[in-house]
């Protein structure tokens, strides 16, 4: 195995070189990649962190896919920040309760002051959607951050220490990965005796820990075998410094991509948990997934109650996905797409 590894490393390096020299990149990305290509194979490993990110940024700036994704994400964050200022009503004020109580009209229609109408409890739908952006962002970011932190710790431990620690961590990761992620999230959400927004966040975060751990461990192992880490070791740099200054920064590329993509799936999974009755039962300040999950019981008579939050989720998830995919392409030395 050890005799196989350096060979494959070299092969990858050569592939990367061949890719960047043999074919001029579209959209004028040549300058960034040729800086990597002129030097010999050794220096590709020496400063890939800087040059790869710099060249990635150069490509990203001109990539319409990335720009659209970034614009959507920016709008979403902006909305979350200003929503308390522009929401016309309190999200849990049951202002249209009288109309709900009339048996003929259980869902209040759009009217003066309530442009989208009310929900099944007489609360203003527009205000709930607006405030919902905050909660949705919160769930997405916290679930992703927790999953990322867990994965970073495990992946770094396994990748940096190797040996027994690596084997132990990776077997645990294997077990977690053998459970389809929604089932894992359901199982963890079901453990809570009092479900809340936090149980949803934790349930989604746990499903992401093994993914991040495996991803980071993979690139850390490749880093361990690389020349610049060997050189640092030979110069007597301490283990800690080697890990945090030389290995970790060079391994984060795939992690950044994954983080962006997980932001999208976290929001979608929160919706699925709500639909299955494992979400946050307190809907005074709902997130979009909660609104969508709860409104499926009226979906045939009042589809708009589900369609608005669903469109919001699709839009935001699309934004994160577009960003993630274009980041993946920009950070991959092999891609010319």
């Amino acid at each position, binding site marked *: *195995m050890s005799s*196989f590894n350096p060979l494959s490393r070299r092969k990858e390096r050569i592939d990367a070189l061949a890719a960047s020299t043999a*074919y001029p990149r579209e959209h004028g990305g040549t300058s960034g990649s040729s800086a990597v290509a002129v030097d010999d194979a050794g220096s590709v490993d020496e400063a890939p962190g800087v040059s790869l990110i710099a060249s990635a940024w150069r490509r990203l700036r001109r990539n319409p896919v990335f720009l659209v994704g970034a614009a959507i994400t920016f709008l979403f964050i902006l909305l979350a920040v200003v929503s308390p200022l522009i929401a016309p009503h309190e999200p849990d004020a049951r202002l249209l309760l009288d109309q709900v109580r009339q048996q003929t009209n259980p869902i209040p229609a759009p009217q003066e002051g309530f442009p989208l109408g009310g929900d099944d409890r007489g609360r203003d739908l527009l205000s709930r959607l607006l405030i919902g952006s905050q909660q949705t962002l919160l769930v997405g970011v916290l679930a992703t951050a927790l999953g990322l932190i867990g994965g970073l710790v495990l992946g770094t431990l396994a990748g940096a220490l190797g040996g027994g620690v690596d084997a132990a961590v990776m*077997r645990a990761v*294997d*077990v977690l990965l*053998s*459970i*389809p*992620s*929604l*089932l894992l999230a*359901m*199982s963890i959400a*079901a*453990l*809570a*005796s009092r479900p809340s927004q936090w149980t949803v966040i934790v349930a989604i975060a746990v499903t992401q820990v093994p993914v991040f751990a495996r991803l980071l461990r993979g690139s850390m192992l490749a880093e361990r075998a690389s020349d610049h880490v060997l050189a640092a070791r030979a110069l007597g740099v301490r283990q800690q410094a080697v890990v945090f200054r030389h290995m970790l920064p060079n391994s984060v590329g795939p992690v950044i991509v994954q983080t962006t993509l997980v932001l*999208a799936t976290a929001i*979608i999974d929160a*919706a*699925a948990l709500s*639909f*299955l*009755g*494992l979400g946050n039962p307190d809907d005074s300040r709902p997130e979009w*997934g909660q609104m*969508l999950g709860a409104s*499926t019981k009226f*979906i*045939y008579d009042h*589809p708009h109650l*589900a369609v608005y939050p*669903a469109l919001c*989720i*699709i*839009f935001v*998830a*699309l934004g994160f*996905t*577009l960003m993630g*995919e274009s980041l993946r392409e920009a950070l991959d030395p*092999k891609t010319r*797409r």
Partner: protein
Amino acid sequence: MARFIVRRVIQMIGVVFVLSLLLFVWLRSLPGGTVSAILGERATPATREALTKALGLDQPIHVQYLRFLQRAAEGNFGASTGVLPGRDAFDVFLARLPATIELTITAMIIAVILAIPLGYIAARRHHSPIDNGAVVLSLIGVAVPVFFLAFLLKYWFAIEYPIFPVSGRQDPSLGCTRVTGFFVLDGLMTREYDCATDALRHLVLPAVALATIPFAVIFRITRASVLDVLDEDYVRTAESKGLTSRVIRGRHVMRNALLPVVTTVGLQIGGLLAGAVLTERVFNWGGIGEALALSYERRDYAVLQVLILAACSIYVIVNLLVDISYAVIDPRVRTR
């Protein structure tokens, strides 16, 4: 090769074993617990204690686990309390397995049949409108919550325009003969062709909803992989030798490009099982996915345990088979 397979099988058995242990501990930490699930919240302490003793729940957890293993070996997985009260949990699983297999396989067939040719065409016509359109479609496909799409399809194609049936697997008024539990297959075997067509019509909407995510993922992998292979020297050599495009496509491009696609298809099985929980719920499909959702709701712990363990085992076994087939196709894998 034999060593590779043996090692992977041992690893797999280890994973499933640890999983069963985790699952056992997990079930016993669920709020409420089995006793309140059976008796309800208002039972007297005396009855609760009696039932706790009768179920062996007063024993230490490792004793309980060993007892569970022993009984499982005898084919006794505990009685269902909510989904199919009184029946053994494993029977619930067996009764619902064909429905889910029928649904997931149909979804996978739809995804593969559409995604691989489309991925190839998109790569061949890189940056053409077809390519861009298909990429955008696949990105949107991933962004739509599966259960919402299922509701949309049901709303449009079963209620607004009643082309397909609203829910279930077959019209019970047809009185079809049951042989294997796979309704399409049963219809063909017994030559009740109207039964087979009816079952197929019921399959369309849930299978399409379930197929979107695997479609998007397989499409993107195929496209990326074909793009990679098209750049290879051996393809250029084949072209310059003047080989027909059919030979190049089949022998040089697709054979090499399909390797990563095979792995991806295997990995999608987990997603399909999870997606089945949502789609089956929307269409009252009566498969494992719906039973899982129900057993969470009704706190049917015996069924939950069997279903989760079964879903995970299926996932692990499929991926093992994929790995082995991969090693057969690509000898380099074995040395790693």
